């Protein structure tokens, strides 16, 4: 019960800050709300007994990436507020009705579905190491080595792509 309360509280904060990120007019405030959002996600990881992921979340996302965002925002120097734009083809009311319908549907499914089956848990593989960080590392470099390597190619692609898109024509 306590776990559920903690989870729903955290989830409410995460969603609330996410909404603030996209509704705030000031870009710097928006980025700062994003930091708070990332911190609450890190708390969620702590709750799931994944302290390593939580630390990475704080270091990489809340720390590194948001600092980069801030750099960009300050360099671009958005003094002027973005102009209000109303899409003439936008059907706000239909969108609202549809999203409420989907939300109700999700709630109904969650209410009906949870507890109808006990999630099947495959036996946790016995790892030769203890400690969260060691276990994550062990899994990453043994069972998940191939996806890990592909992810490294993915990062290389992203890096090359950033260079291609950002460099001036030679």
């Amino acid at each position, binding site marked *: 019960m306590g776990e559920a309360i903690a989870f729903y509280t955290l989830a409410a904060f995460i969603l609330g800050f996410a909404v603030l990120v996209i509704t705030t007019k000031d870009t710097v405030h928006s980025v700062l709300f994003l930091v708070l959002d990332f911190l609450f996600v890190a708390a969620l990881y702590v709750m799931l007994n994944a302290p390593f992921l939580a630390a990475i979340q704080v270091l990489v996302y809340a720390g590194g990436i948001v600092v980069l965002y801030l750099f960009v925002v300050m360099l671009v120097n958005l003094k002027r507020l973005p102009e209000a734009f109303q899409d003439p083809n936008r059907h706000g009311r239909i969108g609202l009705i549809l999203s409420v319908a989907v939300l109700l549907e999700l709630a109904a499914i969650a209410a009906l579905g949870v507890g109808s089956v006990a*999630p099947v*848990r495959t036996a946790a593989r016995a790892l030769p190491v203890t400690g969260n960080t060691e276990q994550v590392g062990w899994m990453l470099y043994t*069972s998940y080595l191939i996806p890990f390597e592909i992810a490294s190619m*993915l990062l290389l*692609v992203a890096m*090359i*792509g950033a260079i*291609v898109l950002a460099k001036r024509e030679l």
Partner: protein
Amino acid sequence: MPPGISLSDFYYILPEIVLTAGALVLLVVDARLPRGSRALTWVTMAVLLATAVSLVPFRNTDVEVSQGLLAVDQFALFFKVVFLVAAAMTVLMSERYLQVEGASFGEYYFLILCSTLGMMIMAGSIDLISAFVGLETMAVSFYILAGFIKPNQRSNEAAVKYFLLGAFSLGILLYGMSILYGVSGTTNLRTMATVFVGHERNPLLVLAVILVVAGMEFKIAAVPFHMWAPDVYEGAPTPVTAFLSVGSKAASFAMLLRIFVEGLPSMDADWRLLFEMLAIVTMTVGNVAALTQSNLKRMLAYSSIAHAGYLLIGVVAGTPRGISAMLIYLLIYSFMQLGAFAVIVMMRRKDVVGDELKDLSGLYHRQPFAAFAMLVFMLSLGGIPPTAGFMGKLWLFGAAIDAGYVWLAVIGVLNSAVSLYYYLRIVVFMYLKKETIGSEPTLSPALTLTLGVAVAATLVLGVYPGLLFDLAEASARTLGASGVTAAIR
């Protein structure tokens, strides 16, 4: 070696390793060569050829690699061949286009190779994690490729649209995947299939199926997740559009089949119904919207949406026959679609963008071979007898009737009839109109080769379709051959 990984794993992913190494070598070679050197095209072709050769030892294997993350079987092999053929033809038609646009070769070819790598991983994945990583590798490469012609605003627009909508659809897909993991406790699709037996009516699983379908439908550009396709296809560089409409679509179909046929066979009543309705809407909307297009790339975009609808019929049928018909149709579709785009690449000159319907007028009098090739591709896309497109549709609709979906086949045939209008309109412009626009379009040797291969394949497969059939049948049988699927059927 620690437990969990073995040397043989690296042997079985040899083609992927060759491709990755080749892509990295290409980057280094690019730095050493003078700018604009055409040797890079041939380096890329050599990498693709080496990858194809390294597939040979695995033509009869059927193993799971890396504790069930990837499968090396004939299903994966068939798709890998499709990807390599598509990539090779794309590279051949890219050279001229990049020269006209004044873009650099090195990064472009590197990204083409990396997206091919992502596709190969997707086709082999029997685990949600490896499938997702493969999908991301492919998608990120395409986001960049779509915006590769930086001075062109339409190219920028295509990249931004594809990126934003792609990220959004990926979120939906991941949500579905996370529910699948939450309910089953495993990411391995084959284990998942055993776990889900007897849980057919769990509403959470139905929700997961809907979300995963939505995410995958975006990638194959099926209605109602097709909105991005015309804009992105029109704005992206033409060879990229060709590769996107063939490679990305084939890879997404491979992943879709893996997830639903291997991972969720017990839920098939739900996803079949979904795909059935989506197939009908996709075919109809694609063809009807294509009727009014005057831009060739937009028209082919809607035509490729319609083709996604035809291909979904194979998924709905779900029988080995349906799946093998789908595989055959995907390969045939690759040739005709790539060929058609190669003609549009040829139309791009210094003074003409060449992607409007009227740009094709009088092509027969200037480039009879290209006009003939386009004629063959259009007849094939429309499904007229001596071409491969006819055989492909025949099998696809035949498989649907065989599986008891007669009316799905009827709608498919009616749609093919509708599609003939806009395919033949192109032929009318090429052969019957006299007035011509801009300078003379010319064929480079690489473009001639591309067109020649595509025409030959379209005609030969139309006359001797048996060449493919056994291969596709064997591939379809490896899919879902694992015990559970067979037991449920």
